[in-house]
């Protein structure tokens, strides 16, 4: 089936979607900080790049200039597909383990 592939959501991707859905737009290091060490600096950017490729999140360059004149920050937010996947994952985990379902 050309152009169609199975959607998959790893633990890290799930966590990133949760953080972005609850905390709004964030950049890479903010996500690492908010994850309480569950995300690592070395892997978060690769995971974010992969999620963007899959269409789970979208990104934009920050409008305001970075202090010190560095490169502009890249801010991430979940897409509609990402949000639907998050809801689906929550429903599925609720079905598999009813006592933890919402």
């Amino acid at each position, binding site marked *: 089936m050309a152009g169609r592939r199975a959607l998959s959501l790893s633990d890290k991707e799930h966590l990133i979607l949760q953080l972005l859905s609850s905390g709004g737009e964030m*950049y*890479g*290091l903010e996500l690492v900080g908010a994850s309480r060490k569950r995300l690592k*600096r*070395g*892997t978060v*950017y*690769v995971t*974010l*790049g992969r999620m*963007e*490729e899959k269409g789970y999140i979208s*990104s934009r360059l920050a409008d305001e200039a*970075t*202090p*010190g*004149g*560095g*490169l*502009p*920050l*890249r801010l991430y937010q979940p897409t509609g597909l990402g949000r639907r996947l998050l809801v689906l994952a929550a429903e599925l985990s609720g079905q598999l383990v009813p006592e933890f379902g919402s």
Partner: protein
Amino acid sequence: MMRPGHHIRRWASRVFSPQTMARVIEPMLADLQLEYSCAQAAGKPWRARWIQFVGYATCMRVVVLCGTQSACSVVREMSGDDSRALRRMVGFTTLFAVLVTGFFAGHPILRFALAQSRDVSVTWSDNPVERIWLLALLLPQAITLAIPVALVLGVSVTIGSRQLSRRLAAAVLAFALLGSMVTFGVMGWGAPLANHHFRTTLSGYVQHKGTAELTLGEIRSLRSRISESLPQSSAPALSTIVARTDLRYHRGYAFPAASIVLVLFLLARPRNTNRVLLASQGAIACGIYYGLMVAGEAGMRSGWINGAVGAWLPNIVFMTAATALALRRFRSATPAAAIARPN
């Protein structure tokens, strides 16, 4: 003032696609620069340095991850047949590398044990931990020799019998390039340091470094010191010392290139389905390469050629042969040649 990550960004832009730069490398560097400038602005220079150090470690990790992903995507995009051939080639080369390293590392141990059994003045450590350490110190030297040999045998046995697609040829050459880079590092720095440690451990006191125990950087500075201190019209014996140092220095670059040169030669060679014949041809190519190394050294000693030509002689010969074979194959494959050829 240059911001942290400036050079990494410039280098990465040459290696990675614009998409990877925009999605992975630049966001990482932007966050690093923000964190760094915040620490600087807060008057915490040590914190800023620590952030820079951690940031560079992160960069390395990300670059390795991106590189691995790129390599995997190249392999994924290959046809099933090519991908299988590549996996087989990597597997056989690794197996040969282990066997040949074992042979080259075991050989001096065996010689030492035989010498010890004949001569009581030769002593070998009684401590088993020290024996393992001594054996480990022989590995870098053995790996240096094993990589080109293993690559030649691995490529001969697995790839030599088939027509290569461009993608597979590029992957094989990239693998050979990796072998060359590892050999360069081990031969230039790992093996000389290990050789010196080996002799020091065996004798029990710190020994002066011999010429085989000098790193590439040390040989370079020795070479320039000798050239500066000796006038051009010096005695023949002294000019031999200069040529010998030259040979050692250039061999530090020429021998690591053997992996890629020999693989190029194998890829240019006519295809054959007999694997035993292919492996034998590979082994003979290694033997000829070694013979040319010895001939280059002999030519340098007798003053016919200088150290640089002596060191690069095997590579020059094999590259010439590879070019001639490739041209011959190219001519025989063109339709014009097929028409001109009678029957």
